[in-house]
C-alpha cells in the first residue's frame, strides 16, 4: 500500500489528510514507529487515530492524558483485593512462601490498563495517547520504554513483550514542550488548519446535503474568522456543527439574515471575549466579502 492509496482510503472514510500527514501515517504503519501529531486544537488530530482504526478495522485503545496520570492508571495495577483473598485462601494449605508469591504475582492478578492492554492484543490495535503534553514528565519517561521496545517491565513479574506491535499515535496541543527523547522515538507531523479547498472537501464529505454555494460561503466565513484575533480559533468540528446548524435553519445564503447569522455564531465562538470581539459589524464584513 502506498501513501497515496492511504490518503485516498482516508478520504473515502471521510478524513481529508494533507500529503505530509498521509506520508507520515504511511511511514508510521510500514516502519512500525509511533507518530507524534502536533497542532492547534480542533484540526483533527484525534480523528486521525479513529479513522485509522476504522480503516484497518481494528480496536482503538485510547489513553487520555491528564496531569497526575500515573503508571497504575495507564499501564497496570495489581488486583490487591484478589491477592489478599487468595493469600487467605491458601493459608490453610501447606505452601511455601515462594509458591504463594508465585501465585499472587502472576498475570491472573494483574489489572491491565490501556498501555499494557494495547501490547497484549493478538490483532495489532491503534493506540491513541491523547494530549500527551498534559501528562507530567514522569509519565513521559514511562512511555519511552513502551514506545521504543514495545515492552513493559513489571518488577514482580519480569518484562512483558508485545504480542503484536500496536500502531501508536500521540497527539499534543503544545501546552508544554515535550522531551527530545520522546520526539526522537516518534515520526512527526504538524497538522495545520486546512486550506479553503480542503476544508470545503471535508464539509462536502461530512454533510453532503449542503448546497455547494452555501458550503463555499460557510467555509469561507470560517476561514476568514480564523484570521481574526480570537482566543480560541474555531476548529473543524465547530465548522461542521455550525454548518449543520445553518443548514438546519434552512438558510440558503449567509447574507440573507444578519440577526440569525449572528445568533448561530455560538457554534463557533466559545468564549465570552471572542463573542465580544466579533460583533454584528465584523460578521457582516466577513460575510460581505464572500458575497
Amino acid at each position, binding site marked *: 500500500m502506498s501513501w497515496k492509496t492511504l490518503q485516498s482510503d482516508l478520504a473515502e472514510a471521510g478524513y481529508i489528510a494533507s*500529503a505530509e500527514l498521509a*506520508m507520515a501515517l504511511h511511514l508510521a504503519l510500514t516502519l512500525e514507529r509511533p507518530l507524534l501529531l502536533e497542532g492547534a486544537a480542533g484540526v483533527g488530530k484525534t480523528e486521525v487515530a479513529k479513522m485509522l482504526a476504522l480503516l484497518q478495522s481494528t480496536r482503538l485503545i485510547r489513553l487520555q492524558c491528564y496531569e497526575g496520570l500515573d503508571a497504575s492508571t495507564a499501564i497496570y495495577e495489581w488486583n490487591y483485593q484478589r491477592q489478599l483473598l487468595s493469600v487467605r485462601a491458601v493459608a490453610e494449605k501447606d505452601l511455601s512462601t515462594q509458591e504463594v508469591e508465585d501465585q499472587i504475582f502472576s498475570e491472573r492478578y494483574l489489572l491491565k490498563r490501556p498501555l499494557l492492554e494495547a501490547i497484549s492484543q493478538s490483532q495489532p490495535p491503534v493506540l491513541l495517547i491523547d494530549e500527551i503534553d498534559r501528562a507530567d514528565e514522569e509519565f513521559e519517561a514511562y512511555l519511552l520504554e513502551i514506545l521504543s521496545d514495545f515492552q513493559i517491565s513489571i518488577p514482580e513479574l519480569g518484562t512483558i513483550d508485545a504480542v503484536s506491535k500496536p500502531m501508536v499515535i500521540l497527539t499534543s496541543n503544545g501546552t508544554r514542550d515535550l522531551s527530545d527523547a520522546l520526539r526522537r522515538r516518534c515520526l512527526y507531523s504538524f497538522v495545520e488548519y486546512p486550506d479553503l479547498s480542503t476544508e470545503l472537501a471535508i464539509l462536502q464529505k461530512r454533510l453532503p446535503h449542503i448546497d455547494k454555494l452555501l458550503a463555499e460561503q460557510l467555509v469561507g466565513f470560517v476561514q476568514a474568522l480564523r484570521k481574526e484575533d480570537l482566543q480560541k480559533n474555531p476548529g473543524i468540528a465547530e465548522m461542521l456543527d455550525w454548518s449543520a446548524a445553518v443548514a438546519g435553519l434552512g438558510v440558503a445564503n449567509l447574507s440573507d439574515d444578519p440577526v440569525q447569522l449572528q445568533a448561530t455564531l455560538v457554534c463557533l465562538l466559545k468564549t465570552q471575549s471572542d463573542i465580544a470581539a466579533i460583533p454584528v459589524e465584523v460578521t457582516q464584513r466577513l460575510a460581505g466579502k464572500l458575497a
Partner: protein
Amino acid sequence: MCAAQLTRFPQTVTGVSERLSGFMAHLRHNGLPVTVTEYSQTLEALACINMCSANEVRLACKAVCAGRSDHYDQFDELFRAYWFNAGREKLSVVSSDQQRKKPSPSIFQPGIDNNRQPDSSRGTADETDSSAADDSSAHSGEGKLIATTTKNLEKIDLRELMTPESVQRAEKLAHQLAAAMRDRRSRRRRAANRGAMLDLRRVIRKSVSCGGEPLTLYKRHKPDRPVNIVALLDVSGSMTVYAKIFLSFLKGLVSHDQRTDAYLFHTSLVRVSDALRDNDTLRAVNRLSLMAQGFGGGTKIGTNLQQFNRQYAAQTVNGRSVVIILSDGYDTDPPEIISQALQRLKKRGCRIVWLNPLKGWKDYAPVAGGMAAALPYLDFFAAANTLESLAALEPHLQRL
C-alpha cells in the same frame, strides 16, 4: 531523485546512502538534531516509497527528521537548498523571502537557542526602536556571538536592552521566581484517592466491616498549598522604557500556571492574563506594548489599586496570595489613596511585593509621595532594574 537536477556532488559519491549522509550533515549543520538513528530510519523510509519523486522523498524525510514544529517549518527550505542548489529555480520569484529564510549557518547555528531563532530574527526586523540596529548586527552573524554577550547584558539597566534574548531571559527568570514562590507543600496529610501513604486509621476502621480484612486501601497525601501570584505592572510614561522586559517577565509568571493573574495599569486598569498566555512570546509582548501605549497619560497608582480592590481582589487575592507591584511609584494621585488601597488589600492577608526599577539607581531614596506612603504596607521592597537584580530576588521571595 532525478540525476539531472543534482549538480553539487563530487563524482566519487554514488549511492543513495552517501548522498543522504551529506543531507543529514546539512540538516545537522542547520540545527536539526538528526543522528545516526534518523539516518538509518530515513533509509528505511526511502525503501518503502517511490524514490524517483522528489516530493515523496521530501515528505518522507520530513516525517522522520523534523521533530518539532519550527524544524517542520524550516525543513522544506533546507531540503530545497540542499538538493536543488539553494532553490535556484525559484530565486527570481521569491528572492526577498529567500534572503530572509536562507539557511545560512550563522543564523541557524546549533546551540544558540535553536527553537526560537526564526521568530526572533523576524521580530528584530519588526522592531523600530533605537536598539534595533544593534540587534540586527548580533543576528546577522557577522557581529558578536549571542552567547557571549548575554552575560554583559544582564548588568545593563533594562532600559538599554530590548533584544529578543533578554526578553526570553526575563521570561525564564519569571518562571524560576514563580516556582520558588509557589512550591509550598503542606506538612499535614489529607485523605485522597491516590497518594503515597496509607491512611491506616481509615483502612483499619473500614476493615471492621469485612471481618478484619483490610480489603480496601485508603491513601493519604500531602496537599499542595500553592501560592497565587497576582502581578500589577505600571506601564505609564515613566515606565515605558522598562515595559517590554517587564511584560515578558509578566508573561513568564503567567504562563507558568493557570492561577497567576496579571494586570496592566497607568490611568486605568486592564486584566491581561489571557492575552499573555499567547504561545508566542514576542507576539504577545508586542501586542501588549501596543495596548499599553494606547492609554497614555499619567499614572494613577492609588486609583488603580482601589479599582483592583473593588473589582478583582475578591476573586484573586486571599491569604495564600503574593501581590507583586512593578512600578516606579510616581503617582499623580494624592499619596493617601495609595496607602488606603494597600491597607485594604493587606487586610485580605496577602503579601505585597513592590519591585521598583528606580531603587537600583545610586542614591535612590523612596521620597516620591506615593512610594513613601506605600512603604509601611510592603512585605518586600526591591530593585528591579537589571535582569540580575530580578534573579537575585529568588531567595527573598522564597522566604515570603
